């Protein structure tokens, strides 16, 4: 006898609408729980790890592990500017950005108080940090008390809107633009004029220097040259390594999330597979009947597994839509999820569900359908039809 018609599983779904709906619901819940968690992990990773340009160096005072606690003099900056091997603009200006970092208080939209990272830069900074782009409004003008805010800042902090006056630390600034950097930690920062911010800080003129290397420069040699300069105790680090080091401090958090994601996946997946398992197992008699009618084991297995995988996929689609909705609601409600950075400022992580997270959830849902459908169908198909029928 040939295979079961495709209409068999389809009608079957209709015949057991409530049970099917329940199964889809459980799978959707499992998909939402795991993909929200996965999205949290990947969003965190994107913010912490992906920051920095591969051909940039960061120069800090020896012993500082971040630019918030580093101090640099005007003389040191002048020396660094004219080192060999640094990329230049067409007019010959070296791509070296002196920066002053402060961590004053800012008010969140929810009424809380957090340390925010305020970075004082010159216009050259946009050429050195080439991943940073002003996407709304315009760049600040020097010495005008103007600032541009990162995308994450704009969502989280009070008055961080283009055209608004924002009170940070000791004074009020005019917000003139919003910038993005592809989701990296710069988006948790506020950028303003170097001199404005240094005046506000009232300490050393600079925290650190970022420089872009010319193509073909021996990076290691340049680093050694900077590190060995006896006049200023400096240390140079590739920017990518610097951010990787910063990310390490979030290692505990990351580890914890991964530790938790596994049982969440297991519990939800187990529950969903169990529901599926039960749904198929309850049809042992039916399978026995089909066998008695002469359908082969393979045919029956194929049909049942197909049915449960299709149900899982429907569950996945419902769950994926639910995940996007949950992530959207969380974004609106929270204005970004904050994680303490090593600098005691806040990294604003925007919860974004990436395609990769959904891919993982898809594999997960398919596995639930396979395992939950195959095992009981296999068992039922291998019972002698008489026994299966007697289960009634």
């Amino acid at each position, binding site marked *: 006898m040939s295979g079961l018609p495709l209409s068999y599983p389809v009608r079957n779904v209709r015949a057991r609408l409530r*049970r099917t709906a*329940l*199964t889809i*619901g*459980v799978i959707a819940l*499992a998909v939402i*729980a795991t993909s*929200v968690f996965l999205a*949290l992990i990947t969003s965190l990773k994107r913010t912490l790890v992906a920051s920095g340009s591969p051909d940039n160096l960061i120069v800090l*005072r*020896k*012993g*500082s*592990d971040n630019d918030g*606690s580093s101090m640099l003099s005007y003389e040191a900056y002048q020396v660094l500017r004219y080192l060999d091997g640094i990329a230049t603009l067409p007019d010959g200006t070296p791509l070296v950005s002196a920066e002053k970092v*402060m*961590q*004053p*208080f800012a008010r*969140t939209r*929810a009424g*809380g*108080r*957090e*340390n925010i990272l305020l970075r004082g830069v010159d216009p050259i900074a946009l050429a050195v940090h080439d991943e940073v782009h002003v996407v709304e409004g315009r760049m600040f003008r020097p010495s005008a008390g103007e600032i541009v805010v990162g995308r994450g800042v704009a969502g989280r902090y009070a008055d961080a809107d283009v055209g608004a006056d924002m009170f940070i*630390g*000791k004074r009020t600034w005019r917000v003139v633009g919003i910038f993005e950097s592809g989701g990296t930690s710069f988006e948790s920062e506020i950028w303003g004029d170097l001199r404005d911010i240094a005046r506000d800080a009232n300490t050393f003129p600079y925290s650190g220097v970022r420089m872009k290397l010319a193509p073909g420069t021996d990076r290691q040699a340049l680093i050694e040259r900077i590190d060995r300069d006896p006049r200023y*105790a400096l240390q140079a680090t590739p920017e990518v390594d610097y951010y990787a080091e910063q990310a390490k*401090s*979030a290692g*505990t*958090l990351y*580890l*914890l999330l991964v*530790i*938790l994601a596994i*049982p*969440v996946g297991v*519990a*939800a997946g*187990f*529950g*969903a597979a*169990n*529901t599926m*398992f*039960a*749904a198929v197992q*309850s049809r042992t008699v039916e399978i026995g009947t089909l066998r008695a009618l002469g359908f082969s084991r393979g045919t029956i297995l194929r049909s049942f597994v197909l049915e449960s995988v299709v149900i899982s996929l429907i569950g996945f689609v419902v769950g994926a839509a639910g995940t996007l909705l*949950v992530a959207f609601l969380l974004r609106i*409600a*929270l204005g*970004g*999820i*904050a*994680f*303490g950075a*090593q600098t005691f400022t*806040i990294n604003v992580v925007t919860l974004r569900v990436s395609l990769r997270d959904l891919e993982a959830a898809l594999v997960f849902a398919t596995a639930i359908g396979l395992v939950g459908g195959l095992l009981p169908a296999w068992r039922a198909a291998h019972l002698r039809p008489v026994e299966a029928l007697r289960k*009634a």
Partner: protein
Amino acid sequence: MRFLPLILRNLGRNKLRTGLTGVAIGLAVLLVCFFLTMPAGIDVFLSQIASNVRISVHHKGGLVYQMPFAYVNKIRAVPGVVAADGVVWFGGAFEEAGHVTFPSFAVEPEHVGAVWPDYHIDPAALERFRRFRDGAIVGRQTMEKYGWKVGQQVSLRSTIWPVTLTFRIVGEIPNARSPLFWFQREYLAQAIHEHGWTLSIVGIVWVRIADPALVDGVMTKLDAMFRNSPAETAAETEKSFFASYFGSLQGFVAIILVVTGLVALCVLCIAANTASMAVRERAREIAVLRAIGFGRGLVFGTLVAESTVLATVAGGTGALLTYAFTAGVKLAAGGWSTQLGPLSGFLVSPAIVGQGILLAVVVGLVAGIAPAYGAAHRPVASVLREVF
């Protein structure tokens, strides 16, 4: 109670299904309990560490701005102030354990006892702390994490000041949740003096006030005292200081709670599914019971009890296993984390376990009601007439 053996028998019919359902419920309740320990950690931290008669005075614009050290004595002179201690952030990194940081501060040793009497530091240790220039008092959490002993020497490299200092641990803060590392202000002052710097600033002044009723008045007076000075201050209670410091964790907590809710919902569906399966399979049997005279109430009761017993036993086991699970996670996460703060305490309280068990009972009841009601109210004759 007379029907308990029947309920247990019924549960034992399909051992595989009962087992799978039980494991799913247990695991989910365990997770819910674990997640609940995280937000609860903030409350526990605030109630254990923070005192209602201690306030912090810091620069209004942020902790990054410093205040003149002279402020400390001015604060001490204000009526209602019992003691004050000005602390300076050191940002010490313990290189031997791979560049880890914990909160390290230079403090005024002679005022520690009076500002933090609730820390119950051994008076002999405080005496040593005053006497030895390189002495350090360390919170038990940090002591235990690195296996430090009183009398031992440790070196910390400052990420703020251009110095590496070697300390002798002279005592501990006997609280397993305290990560603090305190040493003498004078030690830091001497060390940076070699670089030509003078330590004339203070980051935070911790102030103990005589009476909770005086707190608001003293805070207002302090802020008024420094208004229009180069360093305007913001005084706040210790609780509010830490609450706002940890306020940024709310987003993380919200996600945790959302996932917790989803997992709980999942359990409910699983339990409901199992209950409805059990009822469906036994439709004829239930009809027979009814036919020979057992009432609807009894049928309904035993079926609901069946689902409740399963959920409660499985969920209760899961809730109790939270103790073991958190111990494991704590070991893996390794103590104080700058990112998680008090969320990383993972303290399982009886209240949390209670909530987990309650969840399990409610899940069992809710999951059992609909199918049990359906079974109890189906007409007996029509069920018996069905071939299948």
